């Protein structure tokens, strides 16, 4: 039971860390356009080089 005193605060910290990582991803624009990545695989980058 005593381990809970370590694990529960740890889990709170982990949730906050996950939230922060997600916020970074969101602010970097990863979720702005969920349709484009599907098309980008079809865009021929080789032609420009």
């Amino acid at each position: 039971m005593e381990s809970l005193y370590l694990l529960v605060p740890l889990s709170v910290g982990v949730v906050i860390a996950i939230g922060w990582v997600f916020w970074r991803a969101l602010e970097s624009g990863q979720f702005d356009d969920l349709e484009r990545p599907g098309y980008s695989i079809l865009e021929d980058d080789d032609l420009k080089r």
Partner: protein
Amino acid sequence: MPAAQCYHCGLLVAEPGRWRAPLLGAPRDFCCAGCEAVAGTIAAAGFERYYETRSAAGTAPAELAPAEELDDPQAQAQFVAATGEHGREASLILDRIRCAACLWLVEQWLRRQPGILRASVNYATRRAHVAWDARSTKLSQLVAAVRAIGYDAYPWDPQRQGAMERGERRKALWRLFVAGFGAMQVMMYAFPAYLDDGGTLPRDVEALFRWASLLLTLPVLLFSCTPFFAAAWQDARHRRISLDTPIALGIAAGFGASAWATLAGSGAVYFDSIAMLVFLLLGARYLELGARQRAARSLDRLARWMPSFALRLAGEAPHKVAVHLLAPGDRVLVPAGERVPADGVVERGASSADESLLTGEARPVRKAAGARLVGGSVNLEQPLVLRVMRVGAETQAAAIGRLVERAAAARPRAVAGADRIARSLTWLVLAVAAAAGLYWQDPWVAIAVLVATCPCALALATPVTLTAASARLLSLGMALTRARALEALERATDVVLDKTGTLTEGRFALARTVPLGALDAQACLQLAGALESASRHPLARAFGGAATAAAVDPLSCPGRGMEGSIDGRRLRIGSESFCRELCEVAPPRAFVPPDASHTPVFLACSTGWLAAFLLTDRLRPEARGLVAGLRNAGLHVHLVSGDQPAVVEACARRLGIECFAGAVAPEGKLEYIARLQGEGRVVLMIGDGLNDAPVLARADVSIAMGGGADAAQLQADLVLTGDSLRGVVAAMRLARRTMRIVRQNFGWALAYNALALPAAAAGWIGPWEAALGMAASSFIVVLNAGRISAPARDQRPWKASTSSYRSQSA
């Protein structure tokens, strides 16, 4: 030295060095201060990449001015239309809108302003359409009025819309994720307490779990819940009530009570229920947001039919100018293959124009000197000189665009019924909670009433079901752009079909080749293909792919045909008279096309006639199955088209449609639908093309072809994502099933509240049971909605229709 081009808009730079700014690591020349400023703005915003990735020159959009500057006539030219001497009209984008009630408030508020003639708000696009009297008010005053009630308004500007959308979506997603992470973890902490059957969970460990739950629910409450609290507060200030009111009260009371229990170390906590409830509600809202933004985005495409630049003639020399700088009376050169920049009259030249965007009809229209040209249509064959008559907001294309928006804004009143029930129930819940709390002298009873009867099952009943239906529709090849469309689809009694592009494929195809000379059909087809390969004419596309050789010096004669040499032989393809001039003999036998839906094209060489080709706009293979399926479902089928009456009649006969009308203008289609609606009928419109867009908006429910013009899609409730009609009958069936489930959910939620309300008020259920009951009622609603995704068990009246649909389309 080659003349420098403006780095922004591509115009020639008259004074190199006068407007110069560094961009992408090199100094760039601009044609004017406007382009320099725009480029500077783009660069300052960090969008320099635009210049690297763009495939065409940019335009110089007007900067969004502060409210007072909106009254400047120069600025207004972009977004204000004059109606009569003093009347003005404009479209405004509304910001900080949270729900349908906000839109209603803005609409009502605007109507109360002095000098306002008309104000309507489009719920799908969050745009207000306002008309005012220029003598008694100004646009800036209207914008100030909207700001005074806590919202904001901007004149229509696509770039602003894009930024607004992104910010709104990011924030909504962030709220959803905070609630989601919180809910998951808090549920973990709550689990031991649920399993505890007395004494197995030490008090201090339980307190630890409670404190951890409190800590993680706090961001959910303070951040994720702000939309509910803000909406409830806004409503309270205007002495109104909405579904957000009890949700906000329930969440606040539940959290307050739980926090008190945690601090005091006694009593029940239900942080898990709160976090889960918030997550579910926000999830539904996020999906709704995505659907609404998709609809709004497609509306912006309306502006893109007009080209950005026109070639204005000063004397005989063409100069490239931005389209909004054109004025009536200007002379403009329209090269072949380009869009016409404004409404006007042909001054010189002869060509044909593709007006299919505006009329929906694929047949090109012949244009000679004196003919009217419509802005947005495509000049197909030869350059034309156009005298501009109407520009910008006055053009026919812009007028149709406004018609579309206005027609759509006139609709959503019908959905108010369900809201009213929920609203009166909300009052009841609040009153009972207060009364019970006072009677028992115990705040816990009041909280139990609020939590147990928090109308979240009621609030979830419709959105959750519609979301499931929307996903199912997508797998059937249809995108639902307006959730309430399913309700109308279920009640539909009449179907109005468009012909061109809907029942037919919308492009000419070769139906038959009749050899008239020595050469066989295959050889004639190859010659025709070779001649037509140089033509832009829509009829020419029917011969695409048949060519093995190319014609020497092909020459296009507008409205008549093509001439060219192949293997040293002079050949002509086109109308009968055109070919006759070459071979100088009458056709071998009087050639009569079988009916008006076929267009004959002739091929001749200098020594005689070679062949006649019959072209037709082919019926879609699934059209017959669609009409039969709709009739079997008990719907009346109508065919209304802008095409020639004889063609429409032939088409209706072949499909077995009894009600049909040809040569119907867009206004005529509107009247046709209004007449049906006047008889109490619920009309489903299936169509495509710009001329159908207002009609699609006027109908009770509408379906647009995915391959059709963008404009039609934006006002349609459903868009067929594949270029096929196959999903329509299945969508009808799904709509009936969905509405049945919505009613079950509504009934269940109401029944649960009817039982829980007196029980909680009587003090029989504690907050703990109340939270469980509320969660269970929501869960049942969600599970029931999930049944939509399961494969359909065909209902008896539908069985006949589906089997016959399949056998006919097979």
